[in-house]
């Protein structure tokens, strides 16, 4: 939601301006990218171009946009229009995750859900593993989106040449294959059920390790829990050593496909990650500039070292004072918030909050400015 209240908007923009006066942005291949900016929405206008980062920073200092994006694509003439005249030269590969892959039981906060963000961060760590360990990508650049999730940028020359179809395949890999088994020819009987072996790689290998460990340690009760009935479970348990040997060779016929499918579904649920495929597939996408401020939160789209992702906390993205309560705002609704500070506010009851929280609420359109900093 945009900042609609005129005084609040002026205040937010002034604070953004102060931030940009003291912080330089650095965009790789800046002269090849198209830029889009917004004050009232994410992109009010686009087709802007800058020759250098110095020019870009001067623009930020002068205009303090609330939203700032650049093209994942590189162009020979980034400010040309229509699109065809820009002359496409390749596009960064970008992944965007802004919501948990799976629903989970929790008290969801509609304004900003810290629990959802925690899940998104965990999923993001999995994405880093897939990008580095499976895809072998070097130079994975990660940044907090400034709102609910993370962006991952890959900028090598060979990656920039990938087609939309190739990018789709990569997003599908993150989600995981629908099934991992091939049933035998004989109808209705799993006579020759084939699956991953210990020599398999990729998702197959991950699942093999998971299922092997489960079977190795499973009790009769646990086998029954997964769907093996009565004597089947007992027989399976007694022949476990043989079953494990066959699994090593990719032969899974000693339990019905349904049983293995259930274990696979559980595994996929724990390990698959859903990214916003539109962002990855769109070769002309405009995406938030790393390091810039997000106009819906006032938080910085901080760059995070992939290895430091586990330690990243939302407070790392707070750039305005979150301590002393210095401004007065008027809530537009009843508000319960855990971040940037713990707040319980009543609709239309003026209250004092920290600058970070005030900006956050104004950016979200949930409060308006009543009185700016006391010592201003």
């Amino acid at each position: 939601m945009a900042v609609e209240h005129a005084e609040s908007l002026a205040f937010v923009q002034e604070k953004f301006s102060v931030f940009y006066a003291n912080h330089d942005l650095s965009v790789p291949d800046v002269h090849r990218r198209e830029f889009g900016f917004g004050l009232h929405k994410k992109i009010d206008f686009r087709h802007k171009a800058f020759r250098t980062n110095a020019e870009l920073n001067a623009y930020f200092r002068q205009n303090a946009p609330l939203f700032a994006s650049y093209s994942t694509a590189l162009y020979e003439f980034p400010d040309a229009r229509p699109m065809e005249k820009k002359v496409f030269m390749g596009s960064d590969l970008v992944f965007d995750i802004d919501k948990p892959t799976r629903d989970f039981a929790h008290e969801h906060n509609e304004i900003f859900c810290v629990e959802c963000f925690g899940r998104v961060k965990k999923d993001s760590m999995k994405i880093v593993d897939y990008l580095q360990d499976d895809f072998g990508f070097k130079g994975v650049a990660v940044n907090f989106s400034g709102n609910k999730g993370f962006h991952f940028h890959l900028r090598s020359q060979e990656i920039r040449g990938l087609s939309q179809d190739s990018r789709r395949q990569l997003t599908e890999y993150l989600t995981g294959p629908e099934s991992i088994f091939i049933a035998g020819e004989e109808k209705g009987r799993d006579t020759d059920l084939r699956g991953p072996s210990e020599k398999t790689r990729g998702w197959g290998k991950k699942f093999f390790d998971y299922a092997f460990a489960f079977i190795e340690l499973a009790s009769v009760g646990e086998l029954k829990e997964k769907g093996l009935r009565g004597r089947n479970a007992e027989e399976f348990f007694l022949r476990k050593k043989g079953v494990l040997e066959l699994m090593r060779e990719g032969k899974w016929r000693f339990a019905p496909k349904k049983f293995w499918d259930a274990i696979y579904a559980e595994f996929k649920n724990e390990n698959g990650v859903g990214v916003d495929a539109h962002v990855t597939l769109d070769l002309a996408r405009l995406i938030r500039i790393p390091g810039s401020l997000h106009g819906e939160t006032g938080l910085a789209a901080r760059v995070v070292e992939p290895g430091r992702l586990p330690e990243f906390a939302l407070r790392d993205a707070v750039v305005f004072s979150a301590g002393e309560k210095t401004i007065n705002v008027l809530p537009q609704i009843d508000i319960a918030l855990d971040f940037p500070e713990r707040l319980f506010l009543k609709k239309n009851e003026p209250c004092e909050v920290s600058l970070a929280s005030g900006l956050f609420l104004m950016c979200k359109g949930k409060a308006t400015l009543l009185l700016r900093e006391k010592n201003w």
Partner: protein
Amino acid sequence: MEQKLIAKYPFLSFSKDFVGEGVSETDLKDAITFASECFQHDEHIARDAARESKNLLLSRLMLYSMSANFLRKFAFFKAREYARGLEKENEKVLFEVAKDFFPSLENADGGFKVSLIDYLQYGRSLPQANVSKGMVFFIGDDLRACLREAIQERISDSEKLSAKLPENIAAAALRLKEFIPRDFTPQFKGKLLQRSELQNILKGVGEGKRYYGSMALAIACVKDGLTREEAGDVMNSYVTNCPKGAHPFTPREGEAVLDWVYAHPTIGFSFNVLKSQGLVD
């Protein structure tokens, strides 16, 4: 060795060295026979590298000038024929042909491995693949299966083909048309596909919306009960009608969308979504 290989597999990239210059009436007659044999499923006896290379190129040009759909069908049949040939080859030949599509191809663990980037261009489903540290591993059978699709993709690739031909080739294309079965012409049937909104999308949409357009059409095809094959014809027309823009929307991308939608047939169709994507007013 190189000449022999090109005579058998004229889709290989170095076949262009054998094409030569100028197109004679004999070249055109040969190419018409070459393409019509394919559509009639008659056995083709390969001759020399120059002849086969020229036949393949001229056939592609003539067919594309008539319809991208004809070229796609031709690519499908030809790839099947070449793949059958590859099944009889020893590993050395298979390796040499495959290397043309996957430059990073190497032997590994009793099979093969290629870089992920190479695999993404011509490989099959990545989620099912043996991926590790940026390499994809496979056995001979998988490589053959990949190759068949790669050959089809290369023959049907129309990015560098022009639909406007010199007079003599255009006239030959008209002669060839008589040998092409009529039922290859796409049928746009069904409740949704007949709607004016979908018909407008079928005429092609601009860059930035082409993917959404292909999704809309694919879902409409599923909902209208078209077979996957019929949907392929619809998609092919759409891809051909879309402007190339800064980056072309390829037949393979259209096919991929169809594959996904046909694997998830319960997906819903909504005109509101089309509106939000700027596909309809």
